[in-house]
């Protein structure tokens, strides 16, 4: 009986935790998109006022605590020491950072496209590129916030309900 009860409690806890984790990942995606949006704004400022080269901008982003959670700038900075093709380095850094990020496929694709254009045009082109992807990420952020408020609670409740459901079934 004790084993059965322990099993039921374990199943309940797993279901509730899964619900909470899914809900937390939606909140994390919002935070990450906000951070990427802020990074794009910083990149635009760096280009507009200092015409900073790409590796300097990445180093600056890597050293800022605000963007440490994104992981990608650190990997990018390391890779830039060996490979100089930024588009490849950026795509590779995003791939390596996937396990640490809660972004969806569309978010990653937008970021990869941003990287493929980064540093390939003159200042005005780069500022326009930043603005374009800022707009795109803002849209994705709005939808992520929407998801978080609508689905966040739903996943939490679903986790608890699933836990209760399996507890009743196994009891």
């Amino acid at each position, binding site marked *: 009986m004790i084993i059965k009860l322990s099993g039921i409690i374990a199943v309940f806890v797993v279901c509730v935790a899964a619900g909470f984790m899914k809900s937390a990942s939606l909140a994390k995606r919002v935070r990450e998109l906000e951070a990427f949006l802020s990074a794009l704004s910083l990149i635009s400022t760096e280009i507009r006022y200092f015409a900073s*080269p790409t590796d300097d901008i990445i180093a600056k982003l890597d050293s800022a605590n605000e963007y440490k959670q994104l992981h990608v700038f650190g990997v990018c900075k390391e890779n830039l020491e060996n490979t*100089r*093709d930024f*588009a490849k380095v950026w795509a590779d850094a995003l791939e390596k950072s996937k396990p640490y990020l809660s972004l969806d496929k569309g978010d990653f694709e937008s970021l990869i496209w941003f990287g493929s254009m980064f540093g390939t*045009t*003159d200042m005005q082109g780069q500022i326009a590129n930043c603005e374009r992807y800022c707009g795109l990420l803002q849209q994705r952020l709005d939808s992520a916030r929407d998801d978080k408020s609508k689905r966040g609670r739903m996943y939490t409740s679903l986790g608890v309900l699933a836990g209760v459901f399996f507890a009743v079934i196994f009891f």
Partner: protein
Amino acid sequence: MDEKTAAARFDNAARNLGTLSERFNLPIQVKAHAQEIRLRTGRPIMLSLPDGPVFITLSGQPAFNLRSGLLIAEKANIDEAFRLICDCSVHSHQREIRNGFVTLRGGHRAGICGTAVTEGDEVSNIRDISSINLRIARDISGAADKTVSALLKEGGVSGALIFGPPGCGKTTVLRDLARQLSSGGRGARMLRVAVIDERGEIAATFQGQPQNDLGPCCDVLDGYPKGEGIMQAVRCLSPDVVICDEIGGEADEKAVEFSLNAGVTIIASAHAGSLSELMARPQTARLIACGAFKMAVHLSGREHPGVVAAVYGEDCFKKNNLTMTKMYEDQKAAEA
């Protein structure tokens, strides 16, 4: 510079061409003597050597004449090389691209050719890059030995104009001159040298750091227009000597006069095949007439880069420049 170091400089420069450079399989002698790597869309890759052009075969070996089976620079190769040359930061090199060349890490220079994007009468950008000329930087230590001997006198240094035809090593001499003057030696003290490097050829500054050794007492004003740079240097850096390349504009003239009044020596270069050709240019002649330059150093041609052919003193100027001096004085009187 020994062959091994020269070949290493070639490899260092060629790395900026991306995947293309991985196909080079050249002997050390070719690498050591190559002065330029030329890429033209849809054309064979060419190396410029003192003896003439050398092409590269598909297996990366040198070919000494045009034939089939040569390595061709495709549009994608040129685009990749352009991206790498700009360090994936085209926006940071806008001014250089507008001027037609980009200075690279290591002091190499990439000349860029494509379709001009214009705004009014000015070239604002270059698109559709069609050719890249990668010039391999090789510092020639001691290139200015003879020139320094001529310029140094009684602990001071005379203002001088270094002239010669294109490719005779004027910039190389100026670079070595800056290094030697700012390092002292030959009985002279270390002089405070300011280099006005409008085109980035003397110091080859990359991200704020001169890639060429210009000695311990040298300040580099990178990218400044010559006139403005000279004024700035004289006002803020209190140099003993100002060095700049290819002088001749109207603003340069005023700045040289300003520095002359401030007691700062100017050493500059100018394009001219002979002294008479130099004097025939009104602007250069006016600069000489105002007394900024006490001597002119004539470098021999492209076959012997950096070799001094003749040093002309004030007497020679007077002989060749009487008319110009009069013209200058008349102009000054009119201005007064």
